[in-house]
């Protein structure tokens, strides 16, 4: 008997009597932009509001003028990145500006699917990360976020603030392995 069969047989023999799956109520909450921004700032992120998507360029010009290697499909990019870009190029990214799909007010997380990432490694290997999000796509909590999401697709991540660690004496340090800073540009109504 293979391990697979053995494990399945053991489960069958040992599992308890069937228990029904609970129904998850429609939990509501504060899905306001204010709460989203407050929580995001609490976890080390930064939020900037603009009127329209093209206004993002001005924000990048203002805050990231010193960064040379920018990759993005939304603003002016200086290094082209796609799924086949070699590691040596990816590694040089100073700033990635990527479209986010859903923002979650209760925890400041933003859903970024693979299709928006240019390369799966980009949101993580870039030194600084900017996510661009339509204000209308902010929801109250994770229940609403997953409902909107439907399927997680091939690969995707909720990203909440910059990379961080507290592994040395519980001292919070921003910029562990991933992005050293993280900004969200909110646009639209």
């Amino acid at each position, binding site marked *: 008997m293979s391990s697979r069969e*053995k494990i399945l047989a053991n*489960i069958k023999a040992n599992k308890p009597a069937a228990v029904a799956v609970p129904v998850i109520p429609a939990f509501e909450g504060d899905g306001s932009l204010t709460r989203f921004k407050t929580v995001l700032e609490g976890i080390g992120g930064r939020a900037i509001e603009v009127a329209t998507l093209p206004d993002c360029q001005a924000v990048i010009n203002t805050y990231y003028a010193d960064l040379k290697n920018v990759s993005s499909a939304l603003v002016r990019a200086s290094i082209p990145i796609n799924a086949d870009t070699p590691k040596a190029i990816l590694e040089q990214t100073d700033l990635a500006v990527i479209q986010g799909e859903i923002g979650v007010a209760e925890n400041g997380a933003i859903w970024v699917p693979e299709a928006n990432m240019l390369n799966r490694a980009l949101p993580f290997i870039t030194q600084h990360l900017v996510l661009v999000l339509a204000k209308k796509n902010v929801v109250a909590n994770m229940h609403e976020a997953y409902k909107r999401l439907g399927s997680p697709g091939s*690969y995707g991540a909720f990203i909440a603030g910059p990379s961080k660690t507290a*592994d*040395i004496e519980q001292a919070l340090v921003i910029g*562990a392995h991933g992005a050293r800073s993280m900004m969200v540009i909110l646009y639209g109504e």
Partner: protein
Amino acid sequence: MNHPALAEKFNSDYNRTTWHDETLWFVRQKRDRAIYPIPEFQELRQLASQIKDHTLSNLDTYLLEFEKNAQQNGVHVHWAADGDEHNRIVLDIISNAASVKGKTGPVRMVKSKSMLTEECHLNPFLQKNGIEVVDTDLGERIVQFRNEPPSHIVMPAIHLKKEDVGETFHQHLGTPKGEKDPQALTEAARQHLRQKFVEADVALTGVNFAVAETGSFVVCTNEGNADLGVNLAKVHIACMGMEKLIPKIEHLSVFIRLLARSATGQPVTTYTSHFTKPAKGKEMHIVIVDNGRTQQLGRADFRNSLKCIRCGACMNTCPVYRRSGGHSYDFTVPGPIGAILSPNIDLHKYSTLPFASTLCGSCSDVCPVKIDIHVQLYKWRQVVAKENELPLSKKWGMKGLAKMLAMPKVYDLGGKLARGALRVLPHGITHAQSLNPWAKARELPDAPSQSFKEWYSKNQKGKS
């Protein structure tokens, strides 16, 4: 060594013990601040517990559903009955990977946090077989440099002070002697590990949640090390205990809301990554591991322990863990949850762990999936006694006490003698640590002049 002996060693440094205690209590307080603003938090715990109950009662069918969907997504699924088989499977995957075959020079693997691979002792096995293994979670990298096991499942280096880390990094990464600033030390690790990420052939991650309906799995980190490793290497191996399964994507919402709040008091981890299909031209493998879990599933009193989502909240709140340190448990998962998981693996070796508790119940109060941890600790004690694994002093002490309590006259006399003795004997004898370990850090109260029974019969005389 057993828990009391290892705990005593830890306690020999009074200041450090106090510091450890306070540091973990600080994390517990952060947890409280993170959950109080969520009005439905208790309801979420109940839901999480029910979802896990439901999944465990249909675990075979959900595993098959998960396997089928994962395979349809182009993911290879492997099954391991125990730790040894798990390790062999991982080595086989690495050796047979198209991107590794024929490679000259060392095969390099980066790992993000996986308590399961600690449980299976994967690192030494792979290293013996010529694979370079680098733990990339900062805390895990620190303990890997020091050749120590993690002392906490979420904060692996919580037993170390920044001076210790500074010295370790000075030796291994060449940071200046005496450098102890967490910011500077983290930056040194970042530079060192970026190189490792870029060089790696294979990336291994744990699994926080696996979703049957889509064949996806979710990995949660704050540092971003899982995604960096996986997305730069050609091969991704994800190792999961079979109890990590949940039925549907909608159930993730409940667990994601609970996990980070319970673990570190954050509203969510920085990265909550959902892996479903491998990237073009890359390999993705999932290893489903039993290693004693089906046996635990068959123990009605203890199967609840399989609901654990490894948040570590029970450790942060436990008065015994906080004052004895993770290494005193000498098991992959320390703290209250480890003390109910370990006897299933080896009752003899871990027979003292169910006693590493005051049974105060704080662990059960904070558990996000409502495991009745303190009740199970109490039940394991019965099993330990029944299996004759109690130390002799405790065994005969209990037997003697049981006899005495069954004979009221002897009990009355014993009480009288003890009260008398406490009054006349010198402190050096009543508190002699060899005779009375209870008095190691405690003072006995003054002996009362009469027993409660005597007081009661005197005061109730003549009353109805």
